[in-house]
């Protein structure tokens, strides 16, 4: 008797279509999203119904954390270099080419002028550490924050000031920042918020 042989069928699924879909999605994500920039400090912004989008370039970002410490950052790397030069001139500091390069890679920072050099010499992984989040002095006697804003403004007058503060930041600290901006005659600025659903009945 001949053996009954069940013919073995190869299962072969054509994955080409699946592959197309995967890369299509990948393309879409790449084009629509922007990378999360590491920031000097994490803040939880309050929510508002305002729907104005943040401009993509020319932003001067001021971050105020829950303790009222001030952080500062601009988005253009070339402008960052120039900013550091001007700041160094004003405060009589000198930076090596490596430190200037390092500064241009820092998205936002919060260190007083005397700690700046040490901060730039740190390896980039340590820059985000809590003990380096000192805050830029912003009181009436020693207002380095004012100088930063002033110089950034001179380098690029088109810059938009955006304040990002934590929900729990006490009002006097915010007021201090706002007053500083007022002294510089910067009366238009943005407050960064999260989107909240507007009430439907109004």
């Amino acid at each position, binding site marked *: 008797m001949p053996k009954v042989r069940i013919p073995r069928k190869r299962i072969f699924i054509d994955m080409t279509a699946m592959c197309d879909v*995967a890369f299509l999605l990948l393309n879409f994500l790449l084009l629509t999203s922007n990378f999360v920039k590491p920031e000097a400090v994490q803040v939880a912004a309050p929510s*508002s119904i*305002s729907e104005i989008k*943040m401009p993509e370039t020319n932003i001067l970002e001021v971050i105020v954390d829950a303790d009222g410490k001030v952080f500062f950052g601009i988005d253009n790397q070339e402008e960052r270099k120039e900013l550091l030069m001007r700041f160094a001139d004003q405060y009589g500091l000198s930076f090596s080419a490596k430190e200037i390069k390092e500064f241009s890679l820092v998205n936002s920072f919060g260190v007083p002028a005397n700690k700046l050099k040490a901060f730039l010499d740190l390896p980039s992984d340590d820059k985000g550490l809590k003990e380096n989040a000192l805050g830029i002095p912003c009181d009436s006697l020693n207002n380095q924050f004012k100088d930063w804003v002033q110089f950034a403004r001179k380098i690029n007058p088109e810059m938009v000031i955006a304040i990002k503060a934590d929900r*729990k930041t006490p*009002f006097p600290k915010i007021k201090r920042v706002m007053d500083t*901006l007022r002294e510089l005659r910067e*009366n238009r600025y943005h*407050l*960064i918020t999260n989107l909240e659903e507007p009430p439907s009945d109004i």
Partner: protein
Amino acid sequence: MSEIVAQNRGQKKKGRQKKLSTRVDFTPMVDLGFLLITFFMLSTSLNKPQTMEIIMPSGDKVEESEQTQVRESNAVTILLGKNDKIYYYFGLATAEKTPDLKQTTYAPDGIRNLLLQRNATVVQQIQQLKALRAQKRLSEDEFKKQVVEVKKNKQAPVVMIKSTDDASYENLVDILDEMQICNIARYAIVDINDYDKELITNVENPDAGQQ
């Protein structure tokens, strides 16, 4: 893993080249694709942050004659207190008349209700405009223009926001938000003075105020 299915059923014939299927298994490629997708999903942010635009009064001294006078009937003063409390009074505080300070909350039935009532005419007009827009009888540009016009109403309340040192940033954003919700065009963040602080302490502990 990629396999090539050789079709060599039957006997090989001489002189004929072996026919090889050119099917390539795409499974690893798909794996790679989805891996990259996962990576980008985790490392990027899709939504841009929202912002709120504010224009602060400049610090320049303004001549008294040029100052805009707030009509007493329109003025509303909002004081932001600690622990998410709001105090408000209508009219202007003068030496002769102590304003009637009341307390409210950030909830929709608190300060929002109140401001909507004060701003009823403007809110109503804007609602009519919105209805027209919904019926496509008004273009978007025209709608915006009309809204600006409506907000210029002289009877609309003028809100002065004064924050105590105990208020948080969230309180400030919330109250600015309410201005937008209630269609109030004229508002300002003003420095708090001792008089207002005193009013709050009087409300918080009424006994101490009477003594």
